[in-house]
């Protein structure tokens, strides 16, 4: 019985709800960025890039424009280097455009402590000084921030415990269908 409780997981977004949420996020972006001529999108490695790719694809369907998409890896900018059991393995950074004076939209799947975004801001500045930076996140875990950052665009706000984690399953990552779960961290 207890084992069942530990393994429990709750569905936050199913494929249909996720599609609606992504559509809404795209329309919110269009409200602020119109034709995206001065905007670029940076997906945060490792998991934010799939959501970023999806949003760019959906935006193209709606407005017909190709929006510059880059991948930003924050490994070398994290504040927990030498404080973890072992160093994190870096991922590819690919920013094939100039971000100087652009409006940058950072995208990640889950906003938790806020430390990754802080590192991402540092990593991004190595490529220039943007005019403006915004942050889009699919799941915002409420009341868990360790750093004063908030997202501009939020897919869904969720109340969570520290003993829980948000599992994002997207078909690009090898899952059968798109599902976002809240589950207990296995002890």
């Amino acid at each position, binding site marked *: 019985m207890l084992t069942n409780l530990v393994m429990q997981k709750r569905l936050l977004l199913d494929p249909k709800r996720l599609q609606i949420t992504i559509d809404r996020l795209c329309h919110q972006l269009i409200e602020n960025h119109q034709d995206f001529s001065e905007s670029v999108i940076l997906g945060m490695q490792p998991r934010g890039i799939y959501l970023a790719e999806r949003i760019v694809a959906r935006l193209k369907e709606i407005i017909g424009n190709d929006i510059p998409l880059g991948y930003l890896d924050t490994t070398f900018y994290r504040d927990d*280097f*030498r404080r973890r059991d*072992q*160093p994190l393995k870096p991922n590819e950074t690919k920013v094939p455009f100039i971000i100087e004076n652009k409006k940058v939209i950072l995208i990640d799947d889950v906003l938790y402590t806020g430390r990754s975004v802080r590192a991402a801001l540092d990593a991004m500045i*190595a490529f220039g000084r943007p005019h403006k930076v915004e942050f889009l996140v699919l799941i915002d875990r409420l009341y868990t921030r360790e750093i004063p950052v908030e997202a501009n665009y939020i897919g869904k706000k969720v109340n969570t415990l520290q003993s829980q984690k948000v599992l994002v399953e997207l078909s690009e990552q090898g899952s059968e269908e798109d599902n976002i779960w809240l589950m207990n961290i296995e002890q």
Partner: protein
Amino acid sequence: MSQLNSKHLLGIKDLTREEIELIFDTADNFKDVINRPIKKVPSLRDVTIANVFFENSTRTRLSFELAEKRLSADVINFSSSSSSVKKGETLLDTVNNILAMKVDMIVMRHGSPGAPHFLAKHIDANIVNAGDGTHEHPTQALLDTFSIREKFGSLDGKKVVIVGDILHSRVALSNIFALKKLGAEVMVCGPITLLPKHIESLGVKVELDVKKALEWCDIANVLRIQLERQQIKYFPSLREYSLYYGINKQLLDSIDKEITIMHPGPINRGVELNSDVADSENSIILDQVENGVAVRMAVLYLLAGKRNNLQ
């Protein structure tokens, strides 16, 4: 795997293939970093590194120093010619005095084989061997193999000949270990007096004729004649060495295949390598130098990243 097994890098002999590949994968990312407008990341901002050089060096010391600075580490440099070593201080005392100033890592070059291994047994800091006598020069072998991987994609089945003064070369020994671990075939070539006895027990082919060696290989790593380590005459004259073992365009043109030329530097132009080869399209000598910084950044990052370093 995302970390090295040891807190030191003393030689390639102790590394596994997986560890070498981890260093390469990490170096790929750092190569990207050093080609950005801002070539610096803050990872090692709370780390102090001492470069302790008891032997001369240009490339290796500059390359380590740049790697350290691009990781935001604090760097101090020490060279024995201007230090108290001349007044009779022992190696361990010198290093302990440096560590007393709160230094976290030591990058050391020393004329005696095994000097970094000795230090590793007696002190707590991370140690990176930047060349110990005629023994090993691990970061050179890593950047050499990284450069081959970059050009060819993989080292599996590649044929590499190391030409020259194998007897006195730490680059040769470290390269043999690294190349073999990564699946390459290795041959050494040089005058018989400059080949160590029983070198074939390391699993390498031995060839005395440089033309035959070049016909066999895909890649030739050409070494400098280390006159400073030769107490006796190993060959009659540099001119004779150059005639028999020097690689020039004429020799390469007489062979019906493209051979990639490498050299760990410094080059003695006109002795082991002619300018028409060293500066040719097939030479990746300057790529090696560029990759040296990325590979050393990867090594320092992985060694410093272990949790037990932080007290």
